[in-house]
């Protein structure tokens, strides 16, 4: 974990599409109170929606309501968002590196491509039967 992290905020949501709106509100408020630049705020809104939707759609059986922990963490250089879920082991960084062709918009593949394109660093770990996936965006290009 980044030792420089200053501002953290955590929330636990249920793996339901209806919770997406809550996640957007939380992210918007966090970005505002931490002066996250608008372009990064918008990019990471999309990233959070894509990661959360992937967990909802693929981590569990459709009627299995489970918790998803989300943590926002920012310092002067970057912002990181970590999603922790109890679903089946799934590393989006390597398990869904699909070609994005117009006629091949496979389920989940487009979302993963957006996540990878709009963040600078992605890290996946399987810890205690949980998927822990962190994405990081730097305020300036590295």
């Amino acid at each position, binding site marked *: 974990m980044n030792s420089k992290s200053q501002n953290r905020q955590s929330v636990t949501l249920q793996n339901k599409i209806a919770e997406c*709106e809550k996640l957007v509100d939380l992210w918007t408020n966090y970005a505002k109170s931490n002066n996250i630049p608008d372009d990064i705020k918008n990019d990471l809104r999309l990233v959070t929606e894509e990661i959360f939707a992937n967990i909802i759609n693929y981590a569990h059986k459709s009627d299995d309501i489970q918790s998803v922990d989300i943590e926002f963490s920012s310092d002067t250089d970057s912002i990181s968002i970590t999603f922790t879920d109890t679903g089946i082991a799934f590393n989006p960084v390597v398990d869904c590196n699909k070609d994005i062709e117009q006629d091949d918009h496979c389920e989940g593949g487009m979302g993963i491509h957006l996540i990878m394109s709009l963040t600078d660093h992605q890290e996946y770990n399987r810890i205690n039967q949980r998927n822990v996936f962190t994405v990081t965006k730097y305020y300036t290009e590295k």
Partner: protein
Amino acid sequence: MSLEIAISPEASSGKRISIAGSLDSNTAPELQQRIDAEINKSITTTIIDFKGLEFLSSAGLRVIFKTKKMMDGRGGKFLLLNLQPQIKKVFEIIKALDGMDVFKDQDEMDDYLTAMQNKVIDGD
């Protein structure tokens, strides 16, 4: 944020679907239902007007691509209009604009439709 959907008739058996707000995991099913109900086999041109759209995720993109595939399958036209910069960026990231008929505004689309109509009249 919610999604506002307005569907209006266009010339030559066309329909315009104007969307505003957020097209995301939460709202994409609603758009899909409206399209399934309104874009029947008699519709030859479908226009998606993005003028008021502020947010688009992959769930929304899937609805757009499914509609394009349906229109292509029946030999119809599928046009995208008024893509705002943040929406265009999402299409560009997944390299989805190639092969799409995209118009920056109404005038540009009107010119295209007029040219297509003249082609038909001239028997090209």
